[in-house]
């Protein structure tokens, strides 16, 4: 089934299958992490499962993603990720050296991110019932006082910033998985974004929304935020930071960089008055050197994302429907 692409179908699964079955409340599933109070502290809690193929690719591995992915989901609530769990599903016959490399990568990534992997679990399935290794991680982090970051807070007038080049991770994975050469080697951008978030929060606690645009890319994340907050999102197409090698690869494959996954980038919705200072702080940080404004929240086309094209047209950017079906007749 096509429910894994991070598009309309996954959203439907959450809304129509899981939320009713679990009896979850209101906004469950709309943010990257859950936020709740426990013993007087506000915590962000998140889990993610990693099935990426191949296991190792230019610039990273499934191990890096498993740590950074969950840590980033926590950081997108403004929390400092502190503790992680991990679970492995191993196919019988998987070489130990493979698992070893993944574990090394996880350890290194955890140290870089400043998180502790504190608990774990391993299951082995029969040969043929899995594909070497799947990794699940879950984690928690403490949300500082005065910080309230969630998709519903996007407001008309907010400036939308992306922390750097988009589409890099997805193209890096595809180039190794499919054995495609696009001229230059494209490396994943995986990174733990918390240090960047901390630098932004040092400027102002009043950041409205943070999101790491992973599966489904920038387009999917922006649509989710536009729907959750019922604001219009207006992008400026020519402001989108798409590296030439990503643009070239996308043109060859017939993909739109807006829909390609990222692993080390974040989108920020910031009140207009704070935007300049936040942008400056981001650019001063290694993870945000190429941060740039890509759009704003508007009072028109609520719950919709619209990109202003180079020639001044207004292209509707919606959620992908699972496969890339042409609509041109």
């Amino acid at each position, binding site marked *: 089934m096509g429910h894994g692409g991070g598009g309309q179908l996954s959203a439907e699964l959450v809304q129509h299958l899981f939320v009713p079955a679990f009896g979850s409340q209101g906004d469950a599933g709309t943010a990257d992490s859950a936020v709740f109070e426990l013993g007087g502290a506000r915590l962000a809690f998140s889990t993610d499962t990693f099935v990426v193929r191949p296991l190792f690719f230019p610039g990273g591995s499934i191990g890096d993603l498993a740590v950074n992915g969950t840590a980033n989901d926590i950081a997108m609530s403004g929390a400092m990720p502190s503790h992680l769990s991990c679970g492995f599903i191993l196919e019988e016959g998987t070489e130990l050296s493979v698992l070893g490399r993944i574990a090394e990568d996880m350890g290194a990534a955890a140290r870089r991110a400043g998180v502790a992997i504190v608990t774990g679990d391993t299951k082995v399935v029969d040969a043929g019932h899995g594909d070497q290794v799947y990794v699940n991680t879950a984690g928690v982090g403490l949300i500082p006082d005065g910080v309230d970051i969630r998709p519903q807070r996007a407001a008309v007038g907010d400036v939308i910033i992306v922390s750097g080049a988009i589409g890099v991770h997805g193209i890096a994975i595809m180039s190794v998985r*499919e054995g*495609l050469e696009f001229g230059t080697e494209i490396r994943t951008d995986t990174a733990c974004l918390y240090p960047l978030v901390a630098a932004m929060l040092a400027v102002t606690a009043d950041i409205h929304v943070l999101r790491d645009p992973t599966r489904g890319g920038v387009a999917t994340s922006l649509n989710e935020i536009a729907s959750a907050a019922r604001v219009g999102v207006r992008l400026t197409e020519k402001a989108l930071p798409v590296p030439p090698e990503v643009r070239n690869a996308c043109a060859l494959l017939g993909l739109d960089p807006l829909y390609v996954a990222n692993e080390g980038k974040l989108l920020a919705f910031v009140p207009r008055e704070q935007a300049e200072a936040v942008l400056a702080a981001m650019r001063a940080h290694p993870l945000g050197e190429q941060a740039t404004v890509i759009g704003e929240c508007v009072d028109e086309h609520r719950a919709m994302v619209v990109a202003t094209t180079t020639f001044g047209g207004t292209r509707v950017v919606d959620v992908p429907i699972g496969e890339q079906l042409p609509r041109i007749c």
Partner: protein
Amino acid sequence: MLTERDRHRRRVVVHGLVQGVGFRPFVYALAREAGLSGQVHNCSDGVEVEVEGPTPALEAFVASLRPRAPSMARIVAIDVTEVEVRGGSEFEIGLSDSAPPGRTLVSPDIATCPDCLSELADPASRYYRHPFVSCTNCGPRFTVVRGLPYDRPNTTMADLPLCAPCSAAYAEPGDRRFHAQTIACPQCGPVLSLVRPGLADVTGQDAVAESRRLLSAGAVLAVKGIGGYHLACDASAEQAVATLRKRKGRGDKPFAVMVADLPTARQIVHVSPAEAGLLADHRRPVVLLDQRRQRPPGAPAVSASVAPGRTELGVMLAYTGLHHLLFGLSGDQPSPRVLVMTSGNLAGEPIVIDDGAARERLVALVDAWLVHDRPIRIPCDDSVVRMAGGIELPVRRSRGFAPMPISLPFAVRPALAVGGDLKNTFCLAEGHYAWMSAHVGDMDDWATLQAFDAAVEQLATITSVRPELVVADRHPGYRSTAWARRATRSPSPLHRGPAEQGAHPQLGLVQHHHAHVAAAMAENGHPPGEPVVGFAFDGTGYGNDGAVWGGEVLVADYDAFERIGHLRYVRLPGGDAAVRNPCRMALSHLHSARIGWDPAIPSVAACRPEELTVLERQVRTGLGCSPTSSMGRLFDAVSSLAGVCHRIDYEAEAAMLFEAAARPAIDGCPDPYAFSVVSGVEGLLADPAPVLAAVVADVLAGVGAARIAARFHLAVAGLVLDLAEHVRARRGLDTVALSGGVFLNAALTTLCVKGLQQRGFRVLRHRLVPPSDAGIALGQIAVAARRDSS
């Protein structure tokens, strides 16, 4: 001497397009000529007449209504009832009935008539050089009407009160302007102004004179017209045209041109008598015509940038007083004789109608704005038609056509069909009427989505259709379908007024190619319950199996269809990227046909080495590919293989260039290529492999594109004939419907129609709506809204 007994009175209600077309003055004249008393007025159903007099005169009067009606009128039905004699000797024209609007038909916009044109050029006339001259026989209608009945207060001219002489003409039954709602003169009509950045505005005749001077000097002007703004420049001035092309980001897409009259048109294009009729028709469409290679002495030049690489040129004749003034009347300084007249919009957006938007949105495109203060209610682009086999083939049905309804062969529930996503046109229908909207545009664009909302509202107002059903395509990614889903949930744009509260329209979904075939059936009046063999050939449509269909043979009636055959699936590498790059489609087809990518093949040579590597991987593994049976993509592929076009700037460019290449070589072409047709579990599979092999052999042998194109067109027509014969032999069906954007190809349509008719098939082809997705709304209505006859 007439006695009371010989005297009778009849009420005659004339249904159809009878308002705003000079019908009441016509009735007045007819009644007076017959010596009848009584009166006539517009009513919610059309025009109601009461006539009194001797029986023979009454009968002669009724019998003359149809044959002598004004040329713009379309009479659908005449109901006659006997009423009580009232006496009296006068015949009067009454004011409009203020009853709630019913099934009155609003007229399309009509080109300036010959009488008004004489007045425009007559120094003695009140209307001398009046850009807005119009009468009951001509002028804007659909684009100015806000509601019904069609009276001045319900038009965008409501705020322009008539001066005394105009009031007198408006009230005088014998006048050509009696009750002409768009009547205007230099004293009381709209005011023309020329707006230039940094300079004072000039108005009236000075605005015209200065505009002509600017155009002569190579400027680009935004000109406010009937259904929107045009961008105008001198078509002979290469620099001006190239500037406009660059500013508009237009790629190689051709511009349409306008000339003052038929003789000028004949100097630049070949015009058959039928095409001349089409050009001069009151609808004044853009007609696609072959450019003259050799122009007569004194003919105006048309710069190469107008229609780069095209042998055809879209030409229209001036259709408003303002257009005629721009070309100049006798005594005026010479000015451009051929003007580029293209929709005033930004790439992808709908044509601009709002003055503020024109000033803002078009600022980077134009040097000046020629505007007036008559608001445009609804956008209406120029229509585009061409001739195929001596019969009109609509390419875009908009100004001059909309909102002329199409008669359906059965009754339908009140319904809205939202059409497709590109070249969107929607359809409102009820009973036996289907009103196709004007061209709306590409639904990818947010401005177009807004224009769609506004157009639905306006057409619903003037047709009084309150949809119980909203019909859309099955494509999961169509924005039109998403619109339909929203509209069938509350609150929706279709829920207007307390009466409709709580009544959710239903949603109906129709498969794309079924809608194409049903559109051809419906516009030809084909009855329900009689299946046809439908050929739906287009670029892309969502298939029931999730594949991209487009080379479909259906056995269909309105209720259902069976996919009896199709082009063999091939991989569409990279979705839209395959559409924009016909060379990619060519290589995919070669791969499927197991033909090597010889670097001597133009399509192979057109790809960079890294593109070839990625593409090879894609077509081998299916990465980023959907399976497609598209005939449009096969045309693209072969167009590229023959070296005609590898990358496109606008929709169907490769196919259009390929058709143009074929045309001179089709007659007498002795040896068409041939598809192989195999009958399998999936039905009839048409395999293009032998065609591709022969194309490649020709290409490598140095055969020219014209011959390859001709052999290919004949092969596709041959395939249609073979498949039609095959189905007739098995199912006994001898009616064939041809639909889908591929049949915009006049050469192919002509070959198919001729061949099928020679073999005794009845052919349903498009004449009223375009065969492309601009026509599918009609088919969606026909499939989903047919009222249960039981």
